[in-house]
């Protein structure tokens, strides 16, 4: 008989990427939160990278779905299917031995959304399901000791939401969330290209343009030769309907991003404003920690430094900080405090 082992699993259920950590085995899954299903049988054909590559390229027998939107579960059924499929794939039918599930969620989600996610755990047959705020996991995963009376600020700009939080003594003191993040930027880029270049492009193209050209402050990104980077986007001409290509300048992307970041800026200021003064004092010392995919935008730390007037550091592991944090938080099992102070 195989040994019955109790497994703990940490899940970072992000709008863009799903990351799964299995206790003792590390991060076993780190792929886009995309599924492709056969419309007729409603069965999953592929998930992750494979499914993402299909986006915008399928025939009508296959549907590509992003089961999460804006950091929330839009389609519980699909998310469950998705999680089950992935867990089954990585755990090889040992799903029955999973006893603990830790799911990271954005900061400002409603009780209904919360209970929808909690239900997910019980539907999978896992009794002990704990929810944790992403920013807390991100801070822990980036190596910040949050279990001491010392205030830290974390900004996590992911795919669906930008989260702002103040942490102290092992839990979130206050947090705010905004549904302006990676996906929103992509959509803005699509709209812009459509309006200015009269060219319709797909999400994948918009994302690629963003990754290559994104910058907020300082000199525009240059290639090895010193010339300013541009991105040649291919798509369909809106007027003629023919395939066409257009050159997107780095400055265009910057203008779009700066516009989007206006709302991020005001929420950041609102968060700082609501911070208790003692913790504000700590933040002057400790600075702000940035994590999430969008923290890789060039010049983002300088941009935030200019607003908040405190040092801003980038997480060394922006994409995996949350799931790395799960590793440590699983041991805590939802408690905010790890025993005695000393």
């Amino acid at each position, binding site marked *: 008989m195989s040994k019955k082992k109790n497994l703990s699993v940490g899940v970072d259920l992000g709008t863009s990427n799903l990351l799964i950590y299995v206790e003792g085995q590390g991060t076993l899954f780190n792929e886009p939160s995309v599924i492709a299903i056969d419309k007729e049988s409603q069965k999953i054909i592929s998930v992750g990278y494979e499914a993402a590559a299909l986006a915008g390229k399928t025939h009508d027998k296959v549907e590509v779905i992003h089961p999460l939107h804006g950091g929330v579960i839009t389609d519980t059924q699909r998310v469950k299917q998705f999680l089950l499929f992935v867990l089954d794939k990585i755990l090889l039918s040992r799903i029955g031995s999973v006893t603990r599930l830790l799911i990271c969620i954005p900061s400002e989600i409603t009780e209904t959304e919360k209970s929808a996610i909690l239900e997910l755990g019980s539907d999978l047959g896992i009794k002990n399901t704990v929810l944790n705020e992403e920013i807390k996991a991100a801070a822990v995963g980036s190596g910040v000791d949050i279990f001491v*009376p*010392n*205030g830290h600020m974390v900004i996590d700009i992911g795919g669906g939401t930008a989260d702002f939080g103040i*942490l*102290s*003594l092992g*839990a*979130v*003191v*206050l947090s705010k969330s905004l549904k302006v993040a990676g996906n929103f930027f992509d959509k803005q880029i699509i709209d812009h290209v459509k309006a200015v270049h009269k060219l319709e492009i797909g999400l994948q193209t918009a994302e690629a343009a963003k990754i290559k050209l994104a910058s907020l402050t300082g000199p525009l990104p240059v290639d090895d030769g010193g010339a300013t980077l541009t991105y040649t986007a291919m798509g369909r001409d809106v007027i003629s309907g023919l395939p066409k290509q257009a050159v997107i300048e780095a400055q265009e992307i910057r203008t779009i991003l700066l516009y989007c970041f206006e709302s991020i800026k005001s929420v950041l*200021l*609102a968060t*700082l*404003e609501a*911070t*208790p*003064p*003692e*913790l*504000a*004092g*700590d*933040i*002057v*010392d400790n600075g702000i920690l940035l994590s999430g995919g969008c923290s890789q935008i060039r010049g983002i730390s300088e941009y935030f430094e200019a*607003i*908040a*007037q*405190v040092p801003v550091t980038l997480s060394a592991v922006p994409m995996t900080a949350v799931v790395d944090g799960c590793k440590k938080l699983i041991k805590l099992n939802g408690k*905010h*405090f790890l025993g*005695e*102070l*000393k």
Partner: protein
Amino acid sequence: METGKESEKLGLGIDLGTANLLVFLEKKGIIFNEPSVIAFDRESGKVIAAGRDAYKMVGKVHSKISIIKPLKDGGISDLHAAKALLTYVLKKVEDLTEKSLGRSTTVICCPSEVTKIEQDVMIDLAREMNMSDVFIEEEIKAGALGAGVDIFQSKGVMIVDIGGGTTDVGVISFGDIVLSRSIRMAGTYMTNEITKLIKKTRNVEIGELTAERCKIELANLNPNAETVIEKFAGRDMVKGVPKWVDISSEEVRKVLEPVFEEVVKLIAAVLKDTSPELSADIFRNGILVTGGGALTTGIEGFIKERIQVPVTVISNPLTCVAEGLKYLLKNRGDYRVNSMQM
């Protein structure tokens, strides 16, 4: 080990101050000297930390922890928290449980002008902890004994105790207090004044711990002292962002001076009511200053200039009350028994 019944009796002295809690245990000395602060887990109601550990959390906690200061202005404002604090301390430091407290003699000190109700609360506290034999003494009496003054002679001594919640002034002769007065204006009040100052002049809000640090580092009552400027962090009230501010010792002196003027007024009022024979003694022996406020630089000069009597700051201003309890335990506060010669 002694086995006699008498030797088993515990002698316990408690200086339950607004700022600091000191516990004196016979044969052991001072076993606890930390801030009177306690931290509870809101959900379970359990004590998470007490004393210095809890003090570090002030102004930095999230909604799952509540920080309570059981005393306010010298009196117990939260009996439940005060009991929890004392129980926690006795249990943790000396492993004293209710059972061993049942055969103890306990002396608790209180400020000079507390009401009968406030005194009763102190006794209630001890009763609730199963302490059978309790008596209450005034802090200044214990302070004088702790400072090494032989109060059992027929010689007048004046004591000024500037603590956290109250400032007490008293005249002691022949083993007991002749007259005493107190005002509810002391360390905590000064800290609040500093917070107000920075709010008013810089539009920056600072936390309690920061204000306290500012007071300790910059307080200097000598007008000719060199101005020292230090940096403190807080939150800009207009912009909401964290900010450093430069505070000079000159400004701090200006807000502290009115408070110390009040102390001087109190001393003058007590001196006015002192009988001429004792006045002569005080004129000869001077005034003793104790309590945390005695650590303010230049306090001797400040009082001396206004009262024209020699002023001495004792060498152990923070612990003298607890040390004095040793003598009070020996004679149960009886003026006829000179416990200093026992």
